[in-house]
């Protein structure tokens, strides 16, 4: 439970009378993600990681500029774009200049649009949008803007790294692609088809399927199709309960090959897969957890799990968001001049605790970092997820993935 759960009319009145001015002591960061509803666990876990990162990486070291601390202010958007816009307005009225969000590319599109319009219409009140998990490529291509910064590799970059690994696995001759029927799922499928076609033209794509997002509970018919197609490997971008149910169904129905996923870890998914996922589930993500990249990383994870025994560091990029924002503020010399902070943030090079160097590309504000492909297993696991004994152990690494990837972004700079 976060500190800002207050009960009383005082905050309400202050809010409505516009008295919520920015406090000079703290740099507030609005966390707009679901804290209730079906994706609440992902949101709450993310919030814990943000609060911990702000505390450990910034506040404990004296804060930014002349001692200002980071304060994470949570807003529950209930995974709804409309609610996100309302909460955005509330945050702006409280004087908050930095917004972080990641769950659902749908919400991300709504937010980046709204923030771009707001910044254009209200030049005195601008905000920056730090997107830490919405990976629809369009956000750093056709729909890019100066205020949006993406800290996770987008779907195309991830597929690029993934297909590099598949390229070097000669046993895979037939691949089945399945995903959620929306922009992200379609982007994953399209990228998989084109990249496999370029790198391993001999691979046959025996299935390319989209299913309604969040609606299918019984994946048995899909699993049957996968098994009967004779596929050697499955590629999917599914997340949340869709990932869990798909994975379980596929394994249950007799599939034994590798399943390459984007999001099959944490939030109860690792615990649910357990033994059945061992050797089968593979994950592409940023940040190396097992084996720990460095002592600093191991200490960080230990400290986090001491404070949040039920939490997981399953989004290590959150440390980058906080760390890079702090560095940018320090470099710009101001926490309120977001244009200066933005300019400091783009082209920034930073040392990630969980990998090596990361670089924020100025042309599209896409963070370039090492990508890791890991396997779900219980061997060699130093840090497990969901207290299950199982975790993700790195098998392959792709350095600075996507550094030269093309972009259609035509950014208008302030």
């Amino acid at each position, binding site marked *: 439970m976060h500190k800002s759960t207050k009960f009383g009319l005082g905050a309400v009145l202050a809010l409505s009378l516009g008295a919520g001015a920015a406090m000079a002591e703290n740099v507030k960061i609005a966390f707009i993600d679901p804290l*209730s509803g079906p994706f609440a666990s992902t949101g709450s876990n993310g919030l814990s990681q943000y609060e911990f990162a702000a505390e450990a990486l910034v506040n404990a070291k004296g804060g930014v500029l002349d001692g200002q601390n980071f304060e994470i202010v949570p807003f529950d958007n209930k995974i709804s774009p409309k609610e996100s816009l309302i909460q955005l307005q509330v945050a702006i009225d409280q004087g908050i200049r930095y917004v972080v969000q990641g769950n659902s590319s749908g919400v991300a599109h709504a937010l980046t649009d709204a923030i771009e319009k707001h910044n254009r219409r209200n030049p005195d009140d601008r905000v920056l949008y730090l997107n830490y998990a919405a990976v629809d490529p369009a956000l750093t291509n056709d729909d890019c803007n100066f205020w949006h910064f993406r800290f996770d590799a987008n779907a195309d970059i991830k597929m690029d790294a993934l297909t590099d690994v598949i390229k070097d696995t000669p046993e895979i001759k037939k691949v089945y692609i399945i995903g959620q029927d929306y922009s992200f799922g379609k982007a994953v499928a399209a990228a998989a088809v084109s990249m496999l076609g370029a790198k391993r033209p001999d691979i046959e794509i025996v299935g390319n399927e*989209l299913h309604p997002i969040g609606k299918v509970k*019984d994946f048995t*018919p899909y699993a049957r199709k996968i098994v009967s197609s004779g596929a050697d490997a499955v590629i999917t971008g599914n997340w949340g309960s869709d990932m*869990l149910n798909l994975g379980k169904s596929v394994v249950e129905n007799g599939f034994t090959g590798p399943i390459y996923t984007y999001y099959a870890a944490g939030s109860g998914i690792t615990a649910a897969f357990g033994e059945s996922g061992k050797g089968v589930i593979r994950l592409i993500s940023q940040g190396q957890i097992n084996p720990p990249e460095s002592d600093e990383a191991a200490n960080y994870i230990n400290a986090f799990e001491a404070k949040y025994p039920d939490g997981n560091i399953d989004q290590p990029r959150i440390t980058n968001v906080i760390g890079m924002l702090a560095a940018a503020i320090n470099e710009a010399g101001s926490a309120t001049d977001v244009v200066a902070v933005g300019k400091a943030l783009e082209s920034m090079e930073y040392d990630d605790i969980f990998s090596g160097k990361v670089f924020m590309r100025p042309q599209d504000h896409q963070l370039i970092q090492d990508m890791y492909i890991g396997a779900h297993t219980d061997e060699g696991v130093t840090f497990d997820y969901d207290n299950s004994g199982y975790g993700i152990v790195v098998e392959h690494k792709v350095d600075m993935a996507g550094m030269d990837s093309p972009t259609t972004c035509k950014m208008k700079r302030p």
Partner: protein
Amino acid sequence: MDLILVNLIDGLVTGLLLFMLSAGLTLIFSMMGVLNFAHASFYMLGAYFAYQISMVLGFWMGLLIAPVIVGVLGALVERYGLRRVHQYGHVPELIFTFGLALLIEEVVQFIWGKDQMPYSIPEVLNFTALSIAGNAIPAYKVFMIFTSVAIFIALLYVLTRTRVGMIIQAALSYPRTVEALGHNVPLVFMGVFGVGTALAGVAGVIAGPVLSTFPGMAVVLGSIVFVTIVIGGLGSLWGALVASLLIGWITTFAKAYNIRMEDILTGIGFEKPLEMSENVFRDLWTITSPQIADILPYLLMVLILVVRPYGLFGKRDA
């Protein structure tokens, strides 16, 4: 051929699960004339209670005890909630059950949190019963089929061959006369409501491990259950069975075979437009049957309601 058999079995499992839910609902409707919107919520409660009990006493105890608890809760709701609202009319009754569904979901989140519960299949059933052409049929699914069929037979027996069943059937059609004969009709109603919700609870206990136990599980199945009993005919048990199986098979086969709208349209004679990305109808052309599988029941329901408002087997005008 083998694949058809596999899909038949899968559809059967889905259909029978749906039937367990819709049987209780249609019984309650024929008795009270009100659709219980909270029915799927009792299904959810069944799953959660069973999960909680299975943590301490094991899956089988959960299967035995949880439906009883849910049934008692249902009877209490009828006695103290529904009966009170009944005097205001049909619409407030519907709205009451709707509010109840909302409330139950919130209470579940309050007690158990928002995460998915690790309610899993008991070890003893966690193996592959048979394998058809490389497709594994889990033993748990076979168990589900047997349980559902057993419950249906038991229900049929009670309703048509026992004294209690006779009284219930009579009370469903002529409550005043039955009351005049000296039977405690309000008690009968409470009992039927309790049994109906207990059935939903059983469905929850069984489906929980397979369809995931989380606070949104009532919403997922809720509307499909209504569609089922409307298609089958409000008040008819056989209708509920037929409609459930029909829906189970339609959705399974639609997902299993990738029938593409493109093929159908070109088959009829339409030309596929060359430039798809700007075409207004591009979505129509790219529809495949798995995409619309879950919508088909709604389509069916609207069609039936327009053509035959009684549903397939309905005796009573809704």
